[in-house]
């Protein structure tokens, strides 16, 4: 299952979610502002200060920010 780490107010998170939905990709959204465990997992994954959005397929490979080309590559779209 694709996971997307987000923050509610983040416009790039909204765009990433809309993009995945437009491509028919099912994903689990994890709001790192509300979920401390998700927050730590996201930080551990990227090594960054909880930068969002982060999209991952396997908790190893990920894309930070809305990056269409990188998302297409990651998700084989």
């Amino acid at each position, binding site marked *: 299952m694709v996971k997307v780490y987000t*923050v509610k*107010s*983040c*416009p*790039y*998170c*909204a*765009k990433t979610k*809309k*993009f995945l939905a*437009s491509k028919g990709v099912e994903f689990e959204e994890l709001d*790192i*502002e509300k979920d401390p465990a998700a927050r730590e997992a996201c930080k551990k994954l*990227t*090594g*960054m*200060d*909880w*930068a*969002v*959005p982060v999209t991952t397929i396997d908790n190893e490979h990920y894309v*930070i920010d*809305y990056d*269409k080309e990188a998302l297409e590559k990651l998700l084989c779209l």
Partner: protein
Amino acid sequence: MKERIHKDVVIIGAGMAGLTAAMYCGRMNLDTLVLENGIIGGQIANATNIENYPGFVSVQGGDLIATVQQQAENFGAVVDEFDEIEKVTLKATPKIIETQEKIYEADVVIIASGMNRRKLPLSEEKKFAGRGVHYCELCDGHAYDGKIIAVMGGGNAAVDAANFLTKYATKLYLIHRSEFRADEVSQKRLRANDKVTIMLQTEIKALRGNKRLEEVEIFDKKSGETKTLAVDGIFVNIGVEPNTKLFKDELTLTASGRISAGEDCRTEIDGVFAAGDVREKEIRQLTTAASDGTTAALLAEKYLARLKAVN
């Protein structure tokens, strides 16, 4: 082979100017497409507390622009924020807008591509991007709950970002190389917050840290002193630059990189209009962006009517 599609109007940019134009074009039954390479709303998508847009005591930028998008779509305009524009040919008839997936032929093009935020011009920016250096307070501000934050910049966007970030910061520095350009109301709010220290006429000269940002070197232009300031994160709001790269071979750009067009939004090419912050003008506000979008759409309809009468 890319599909070729005809449109009455293609609007480039889905900020306030572009979406207002789309709303008007939609109401006039024009076949209208809005293309956006960045995020819907442009600069105001990041605005936390808009208090100077008539009709609203206070509104979030994202909420306001989502409403305008809804209005445009209700009247039939289509907004595509995923198919990026690769090339435009404006001098041709019809005008050609080539995206990653399609080729659009348009009788009218309204350019409302807005502005992009400037990056911090320091060599260490890349090392610390996302590790203490940030550009989106709405996205990353929450990571600094209980931390020391610096905001760089002195315009409305910077002061509004600083006011927003005080909800997380234990201490916040507003650092700006010259004097404030922000509204008095926003400045007053910031000055009244005892977590905030305002450092005007002060430049950030270097960023330091091991794996992440730990301190910034600042230079006080008045005293000539160089100091080190411990900070956990810095949010950069040092201005914007016009998003006109796509048009540099098609239209005359001004010294500031904006598109030259009068209050009627007409450019040097018939059927091509420039609206919002991308147009060279003295006042650039959300209200004037909406005004430009209105003007461009109404004059686009007149242009199309003339075009049809001739053909």
